[in-house]
């Protein structure tokens, strides 16, 4: 009976409102596609002089940016890309094992009440703005880490990546990688913690029932279950590290070479930090060049994130 009342009370405009609302919802869904396309297209248009414009002028711009080290776009962007990937991969390697360790600590080692607090802290740390990591890295970590890197350069200098002498101040790829590792750590930790916690207890009991120690149980049940989650978390972290601007900008002493000498200054630069650094002084054509490098960064992070999500999707299905 109450349904009768309701129908009677429903405003006559209900149908129209229904249609409008539905249209708006569809529109907003489609808008996501439009926005992504717009990001690509606007960058592309603004970078157009780089492709369709006077190549000699382009090359001169690049040459001006780099003090003559590079004199065409690819000669400019490839070392930057190398620097970006180098720093990000290093950061990922450093963060990966530590993050998995923390995630396991929270999911399987710490007592429950402590674990709740810890995961809360990890979530909060993900929220600290990158400019603060940059400030901390530039003013605190750079001087603090020098003795360590110096020791590494003196004792492990025979490994090419640690070739000395260690620069002082340590505004180097090695230090930046450490800061980026700290920044992506919460991402990997919180995602892998979530998936470790979902390990079916039946699997865990099966391992214990066979006489496994705790670590063996983790290897038998938890890690295989969480594998795809770990991979996709790492990819997301990589995507974040690739695009990180401020921390790199505020710490790294930039260079433009294909160098793997992590402890020496002025070796590499990343695309994102380079854009932020060069942007204020760039002329119109210079901005086009920078946006061209930004477009490449966009495409790379797009692919990395796309792959990461595909992995998650597959694992979830």
């Amino acid at each position, binding site marked *: 009976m109450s349904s009768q009342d309701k129908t009677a009370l429903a405003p006559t405009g209900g149908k129209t409102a229904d249609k409008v609302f539905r249209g708006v919802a569809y529109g907003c869904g489609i808008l996501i596609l439009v926005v992504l396309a717009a990001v690509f297209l606007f960058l592309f248009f603004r970078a157009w002089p780089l492709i369709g414009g006077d190549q000699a002028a382009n090359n001169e711009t690049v040459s001006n940016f780099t003090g003559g080290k590079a004199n065409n776009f690819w000669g400019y962007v490839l070392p930057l890309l190398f620097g970006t990937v180098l720093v990000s991969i290093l950061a990922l390697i450093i963060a990966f094992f530590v993050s998995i360790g923390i995630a396991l600590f929270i999911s399987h080692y710490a*007592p429950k009440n402590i674990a709740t607090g810890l995961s809360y802290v990890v979530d909060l740390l993900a929220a600290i703005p990158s400019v603060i990591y940059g400030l901390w890295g530039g003013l605190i970590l750079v001087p603090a880490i020098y003795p360590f890197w110096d020791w590494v350069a003196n004792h492990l200098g025979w490994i090419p990546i640690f070739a000395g002498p260690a620069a002082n101040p340590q505004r180097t790829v090695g230090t930046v990688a450490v800061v980026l590792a700290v920044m992506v750590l919460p991402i990997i930790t919180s995602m892998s913690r979530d998936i470790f916690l979902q390990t079916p207890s039946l*699997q865990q*009991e099966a391992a214990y029932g*066979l*006489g*496994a120690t705790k670590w063996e149980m983790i290897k*038998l*049940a938890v890690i*295989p279950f969480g594998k795809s989650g770990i991979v996709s978390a790492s990819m997301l972290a990589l995507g974040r590290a690739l695009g990180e601007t401020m921390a790199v900008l505020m710490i790294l002493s930039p260079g433009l070479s294909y160098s793997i000498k992590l402890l020496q200054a002025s070796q590499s630069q990343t695309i994102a930090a380079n854009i932020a650094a060069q942007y204020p002084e760039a002329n119109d054509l210079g901005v086009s060049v920078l946006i061209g490098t930004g477009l490449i960064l966009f495409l790379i992070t797009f692919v990395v994130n796309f792959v990461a999500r595909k992995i998650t999707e597959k694992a979830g299905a």
Partner: protein
Amino acid sequence: MGQRIDVNHENIYYGDFLAVEDVNINIEANKVTAFIGPSGCGKSTVLRTLDRMHELIPGAHVEGEVLLEGKNLYDKDVDPVSVRRDVGMVFQRPNPFPTMSIRENVLAGVRLNNKHLSKSDADDLVEWALRGANLWNEVKDRLDNPGIGLSGGQQQRLCIARAVAVHPQVVLMDEPCSALDPISTLAVEDLINELKDDYTIVIVTHNMQQAARIADYTAFFNLKAVGQPGHLEYFADTTTMFNNPQNEEAERYISGRFG
């Protein structure tokens, strides 16, 4: 050969909560002993104290003795990890490791102690365990397929093969057929009957017909009221339990008047 288990004055706690009170039971070697009783009476809990699995729940602990062939499992110098190797366990729902093949599932326990298992040893062991679990003929051509691809009943027998491959003295089964269809249940019951030649078997079951079919001895657990600790009400050989129980509560439970 199987080994006997003697439980003396066992109290089981979760934190401060006394879950099961004063259990005394003698489980014969190479026999099947069934635990029956209404839900919440603690029969699964008692079973899980026999291989110290219940300790995995934070705060759970035990008072009293559990003697495996005279040796107390709860002595200070006993490592729960080695207890669980001597006392195998099969769970309510089949739980093969999803990322492993049938073969690797069987070997999972053995590999813990034998890092470098030769291929021929491994092959023999897999065949032996799968034959022991009546599964060999069904899977011998696809040992490298994932264990998770088998039917429920096959998976459960795979889990039994995995448990016996470590060559335990005792196999504990926690309602092993509750997630299986009748035909798979029959296959597992047949298997249990064969296994008792080599192992002592303790099985928790909700199904009284099953207890009557496969058990040599039956223990009836009960609780006075919800929130009260469970206890062992009556223990007898299966024939007596189901035909002529000398205990009023057990008789009422068996004749279907409660639980």
